[in-house]
């Protein structure tokens, strides 16, 4: 098998919380012992809700800030503990696109300058070469350089600004782009345009994505494999199709049940059957399985022993003592109809 592009092993990110006077009040277990690999040209979707640690994980991979423990290898190079200059060099291959382009792009700069800046920082090409490269990049993301090149972020729509942010991320020919909720702030139609752009760039440039989002249907659309995080832990990871067809972790089931279907005749299972209560604090996460306090399947062992991430199907792993059965999904509570293809 070819060498993975990105190899994350036992990554831990913890933050110390201090009271007034600097007395340690506790530790936020933001990312706890997370491991996964990403192949060149592959898209791994990373799903989780607020507080799951998915954005912290992305930043720990980028070494900003550096993780508490664990290993991050990019093209075989260990990033943890790397000296600043070498780290800067290594980061060329790994770029980040954020949710809010207006927050991540300097409002005083023009689109052209924003895209050129990484080229200048890495001293790439002459001024003329850089100009040509910037025009090429803007065209690649669907922006006419003559029309948009001199605009500042405020003079762009949300979709256009996100395109500039993507062009900027592409400037250094990265192998991996970490997309942190890249389309969450966009309207439905613009969102589809930007998603299609990301897909086109992936096939044209052979990019790998770590695609972080809270919307499972959206992640399915773009991913080869999907990883689900809950309260700092990876609870399930597997091929996209299998994970949605046969979710193994009860939390994944709850996430899937929460998606409002655009088909009004689709049967709805109340989400309160699949998850209860509120997300516990990451300062004092539950013992054993962290999902057990909200899990309808939890038993005594779930509090006593932490379930390891184990392989339950080809390429499909889940951390659960009582994984959801791999039979057909449980029918909704209403009605007892078992005929599979009844149409009305």
């Amino acid at each position, binding site marked *: 098998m070819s060498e993975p592009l990105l190899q994350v092993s036992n990554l831990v990110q913890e933050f110390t919380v201090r009271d007034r006077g600097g007395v340690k009040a506790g530790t936020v277990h933001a990312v706890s012992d997370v491991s996964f690999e990403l192949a060149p040209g592959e898209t791994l979707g990373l799903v989780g809700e607020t507080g799951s640690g998915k954005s912290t994980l992305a930043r720990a991979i980028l070494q900003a800030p550096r993780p508490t423990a664990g290993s991050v290898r990019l093209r075989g190079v260990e990033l943890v503990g790397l000296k600043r200059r070498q780290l800067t060099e290594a980061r060329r291959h790994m770029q980040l696109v954020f949710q809010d382009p207006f927050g991540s792009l300097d409002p005083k700069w023009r689109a052209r300058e924003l895209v050129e800046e990484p080229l200048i920082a890495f001293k790439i090409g002459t001024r003329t070469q850089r100009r040509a490269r910037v025009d090429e990049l803007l065209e690649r993301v669907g922006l006419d350089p003559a029309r948009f090149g001199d605009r500042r972020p405020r003079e762009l729509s949300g979709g256009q600004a996100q395109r500039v942010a993507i062009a900027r991320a592409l400037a250094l020919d990265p192998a991996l782009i970490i997309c942190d909720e890249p389309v969450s702030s966009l309207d439905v139609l613009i969102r589809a345009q930007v998603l299609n752009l990301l897909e086109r760039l992936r096939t044209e440039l052979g990019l790998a994505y770590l695609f972080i989002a809270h919307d499972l249907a959206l992640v399915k659309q773009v991913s080869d494999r999907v990883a689900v995080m809950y309260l700092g832990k990876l609870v399930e990871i597997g091929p996209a199709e299998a994970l949605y067809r046969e979710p193994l972790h009860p939390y994944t089931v709850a*996430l899937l049940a*929460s998606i409002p279907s655009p*088909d009004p005749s689709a049967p709805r299972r109340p989400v309160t059957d699949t998850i209860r209560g*509120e997300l516990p604090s990451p300062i004092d996460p539950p013992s054993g399985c962290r999902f057990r306090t909200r899990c309808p399947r939890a038993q005594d062992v779930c509090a006593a022993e932490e379930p390891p991430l184990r392989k339950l199907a080809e390429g499909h792993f889940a951390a659960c003592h009582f994984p959801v059965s791999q039979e057909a999904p449980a029918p909704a509570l209403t009605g007892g109809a078992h005929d599979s293809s009844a149409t009305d």
Partner: protein
Amino acid sequence: MSANGLSPTGSDVEPLGGGGGAASVGAPLLEISGLRIDFHQAGNVVRAVDGLTYAVPRARTVGLIGESGCGKTVSSRAIMGLLPPSALITGSIRFEGQELVGLPERRLRELRGSQIAMVFQDPARSLNPTLRIGPQITEAIRLHSDVTKTAAHDRAVELMELVRLPAARQRFRQYPHQLSGGMRQRVMIAIALAAEPKLLIADEATTALDVTTQAQIMELLRDLQQRLGMALIMISHDLGLAASFADEVMVMYAGRGVERAPTRKLFEHVRMPYTRALLDAIPRLENASHSPLAAVAGQPPDLAHEQVGCPFSPRCPNATEKCREHAPPFQEQEPDHLWACWHPCGLERPA
């Protein structure tokens, strides 16, 4: 004609809460017709809402769907009387038969909160961060009904239990920052329900929340609506949410209503190409990984310029010369199904 911004009736002679005949049995709770809202900005007129017409029956949910700037929020703020004085409102908004356009602020305030309440997207900004949540709920109760402090306290705890806030009695003394986003939104809903309104407007009430929290809050709203017999206007950009929770859906584009029908009918027989585009752009679990989404190009029009023809025509796959020159009327073209389109989907009409 009606440039002075007053109601078409000209004066406010109608009695508040009217006589017995004011709200006939079958009449909808809220009737909006020909609503137009203009903002004057630096010499330009921005027509945020342009001839909106729809009705909300009692105890039903109407989903108001569209993208940013389509007028869904502005039009619902007009119902609440929450628009700034620079907004020029014409047309009619009738609540239980009473005209709200042109109603003096004092009378509107009586309706607001007691008869019509609103829940906003960002509960953190709607709550007072310096006050404990209990007193914020009791204040809302005492504003609308003449009860003792103790009775208001009991009612507040009752409301907190109604919106399923865990450990209601203990939460009473907590500050908003001690609650999660989902719990804060539950507090906002409790405040909105304090006076038992007949109409609740939920403006992107779950957009800022996580998916599992969103589903819990939507289920709560539906449950409350059925138990309290309250009507609900659900404003959202998410057609999926409307499909799951609304009885009727109104799709808006560029300040206008473009398609309206009972939810099932709408999703089974989409007529307006814009509704089609919205539906096709939603990622679905049934789609294979890496399958492209149907995405129409372009952006909504700038409402500071006068619209000629159908506002969606520059982006519409079905558009012809006629569409660019003449705006199609928003009419009932099939039973209970209204749309504004010269070339509706699924209807091949011989020329």
